[in-house]
């Protein structure tokens, strides 16, 4: 090819960036401009296929991208500038890493000639993000840009998903070369396993059918691996009880009679007791997190364990398992169902009936009961009403703390990808930007953000973004004037010394919402809860901030205290 021909088709790195995103089918980028990404912003401005959402803080950009990705089948994309832009994005990146959210985060970088010179707005982004990404890249040559972006999306979305950071120096976005986006990519060092091992599947089927007191325990992997349908078929076929982790809610329909509720520290009594007494545990897309297992020494003392996970390092990390199956949840579940059919054996009906009888006794404890006659608003009641009034069809985000647990306990998710929260990192402040991302993915859906007066203030600036893009979110602020979960632990374990857990000098949330151009409603009486939620839902075009003044003394029950086993729950 002659030089003239090649230079005539050459485009800048910034344009390559846009064209690559278009080729990936990216519809929306959450970001915030700055010096190092000005060429990219200029190129974004001059095209109309990829839209850009301007957040008010880079943390919000990454969380919004997470919310987007968690609620639909696409990776989230964020774009921030170098230096403080990148450091502000770290919390979101770490959050996505802990919860395996497919995310591609583009960070600007100072020009290659200045890297290492302590230039203005320079940080070692690749170095800082290394421990909290699935992978990261520094693009040093414009010729590598398109391939690197292809790799980034490939790595982020395959295997166990996760965040990938692509750091792009400013000169790379100005330099030109010919653009060709790779159709597909192969990396010799990265080949995630999809199908399970046939021999292991057979062993698992035999063990599953031999169970007298079986339990199915599934996590976020079922949601991420789009395995809900297969899981439901598998579980109904067996008639076994099932529990979901916090991240796994919606993976199995919560209104189904085989569902025992969430397990773990604030899970239901029946789910935790069934775990403790199980003889065969079938763990699918779950990682035996410490908030689930309680004291590991006391975890499932009688159970043989089958563990299905796409990430080999999740297997036997915390708990030694008997039949590991490495593979994607959906195909493995299909193979398990096939294996059950081929085996022809049936679960032990008599043993199963006895087991269900035992479970019903645990269920009779009614572990989620709370005072319905209180003159104060009970936070559980607010969530329950929101569930009823949205017919369980809303997308619900939460922040972190007591309200998160009540949302998980009382909003019963029948579908996957509807429950968006921060499980692994436990990041306060995610709720509002998560909800923004969800609303962009589902413009017509009802998106609720169940939050608390402490969490919501950690990314409150995003109310401005919501106004700019007219996002009609429903914010349910369970305002107990305390860092509720901290207060609860101080009540239980620090003799009521409430160090720094009281949120003094709170803003007037109604005025605050109004100042940002939204509707604010304060609710102080239990009798007004339902009406206020109805009012908020009726305002289809507006963001409504419902500030519920709730009972300050309410605690989350039941609870496995630190160091205890799953059979040692504190009940109400």
């Amino acid at each position, binding site marked *: 090819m002659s030089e003239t021909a090649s230079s005539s088709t050459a485009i800048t790195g910034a344009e390559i960036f846009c064209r690559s995103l278009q080729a990936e089918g990216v519809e929306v980028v959450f970001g915030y401009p700055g010096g190092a990404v000005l060429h990219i912003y200029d190129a974004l401005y001059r095209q109309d296929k990829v839209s850009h959402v301007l957040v008010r803080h880079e943390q919000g950009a990454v969380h919004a991208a997470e919310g987007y990705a968690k609620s639909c089948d696409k990776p989230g994309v964020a774009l921030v500038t170098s230096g403080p832009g990148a450091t502000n994005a770290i919390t979101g990146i770490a959050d996505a890493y802990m919860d395996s959210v497919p995310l591609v985060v583009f960070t600007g970088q100072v020009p290659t000639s200045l890297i290492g010179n302590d230039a203005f707005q320079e940080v070692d982004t690749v170095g800082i993000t*290394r*421990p909290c990404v699935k992978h990261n890249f*520094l693009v040093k040559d414009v010729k590598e840009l398109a391939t690197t972006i292809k790799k980034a999306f490939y790595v982020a979305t395959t295997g166990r998903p996760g965040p990938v950071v692509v750091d792009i120096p400013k000169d790379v976005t100005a330099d030109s070369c010919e653009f060709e986006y790779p159709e597909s990519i192969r990396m010799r*060092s990265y080949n995630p396993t999809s199908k399970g091992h046939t021999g292991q599947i057979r062993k698992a089927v035999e063990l599953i059918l031999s169970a007298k007191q079986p339990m199915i325990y599934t996590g976020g992997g079922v949601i991420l691996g789009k395995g809900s349908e297969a899981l439901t078929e598998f579980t109904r076929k067996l008639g076994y009880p099932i529990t979901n982790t916090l991240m796994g809610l919606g993976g199995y329909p919560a209104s189904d009679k085989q569902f025992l509720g969430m397990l773990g520290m604030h899970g239901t009594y029946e789910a935790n007791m069934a775990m403790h007494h199980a003889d065969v545990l079938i763990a699918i897309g779950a990682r035996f997190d410490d908030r689930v297992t309680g004291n590991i020494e006391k975890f499932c003392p009688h159970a043989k364990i089958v563990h299905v996970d796409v*990430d080999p*390092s999740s*297997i036997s*990390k915390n708990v030694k398992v008997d039949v590991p199956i490495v593979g994607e949840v959906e195909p493995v579940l299909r193979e398990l169902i096939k294996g059950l059919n081929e085996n022809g054996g049936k679960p032990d009906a008599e043993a199963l009936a006895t087991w269900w009888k035992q479970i019903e006794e645990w269920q009779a404890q009614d572990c989620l009961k709370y005072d319905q006659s209180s003159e104060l608003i009970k936070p559980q009641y607010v969530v329950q009403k929101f569930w009823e009034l949205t017919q369980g069809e809303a997308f619900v985000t939460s922040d972190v703390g007591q309200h998160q647990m009540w949302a998980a306990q009382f909003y019963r998710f029948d579908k996957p990808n509807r429950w968006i929260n921060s499980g692994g990192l436990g990041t306060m402040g995610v709720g509002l930007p998560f909800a923004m991302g969800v609303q962009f993915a589902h413009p017509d859906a009802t998106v609720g953000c169940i939050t608390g007066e402490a969490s919501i203030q950690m990314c409150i600036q995003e109310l401005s973004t919501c106004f700019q893009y007219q996002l009609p979110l429903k914010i349910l602020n369970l305002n107990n004037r305390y860092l509720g979960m901290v207060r609860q632990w101080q009540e239980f374990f620090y003799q009521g010394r409430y160090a720094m857990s009281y949120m003094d000098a709170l803003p007037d949330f109604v005025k605050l919402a109004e100042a940002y151009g939204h509707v604010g409603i304060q609710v102080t009486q239990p009798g007004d809860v339902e009406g206020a939620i109805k009012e908020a839902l009726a305002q289809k075009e507006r963001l409504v901030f419902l500030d519920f003044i709730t009972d300050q003394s309410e605690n989350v029950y039941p609870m496995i205290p630190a160091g205890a086993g799953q059979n040692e729950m504190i009940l109400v």
Partner: protein
Amino acid sequence: MRHIISVLLENEAGALSRVAGLFSARGYNIESLTVAPTDDPSLSRMTIVTSGSDEIVEQITKQLNKLIDVIKLLDMTAYPHIEREMALVKVRVPEAADREEAKRLADIFRGRIIDVTHDTYVVEITGEGSKLDAFLEALQPFPVLEVVRSGVMGIARGDVSLQI
């Protein structure tokens, strides 16, 4: 138990820090780590000596495999293998008698003197770590000025080999 793990990884900027970072982030022991490009310049080969229970070593190998830059690895401990380490030792030998004794010791350990000044020798010695330890022990009577150890390299015997 001590394990010696060989790793083939992409010879790319930052690959070493991914491995080093993994060990510090997850609190794994690291006794030594050596790395250099292979005959294929796009690949690096790393030898890591670590220790831990079977469960921990299993996690170490899984976590290493999970790193995107890691192509393949082999826990040598499971196979007959050869380990080698090199040391460069600078000793002060101002007296003729010392020089003779140091030379004799180097010969016994099949070391080579690769630098000579009027009062120092630099000895190059290769072998398993324990042999190097023994040599340094034997040099005790002399003032040892510097010791440089390469860390352990390993290769499996026979048909077992780590390649793409």
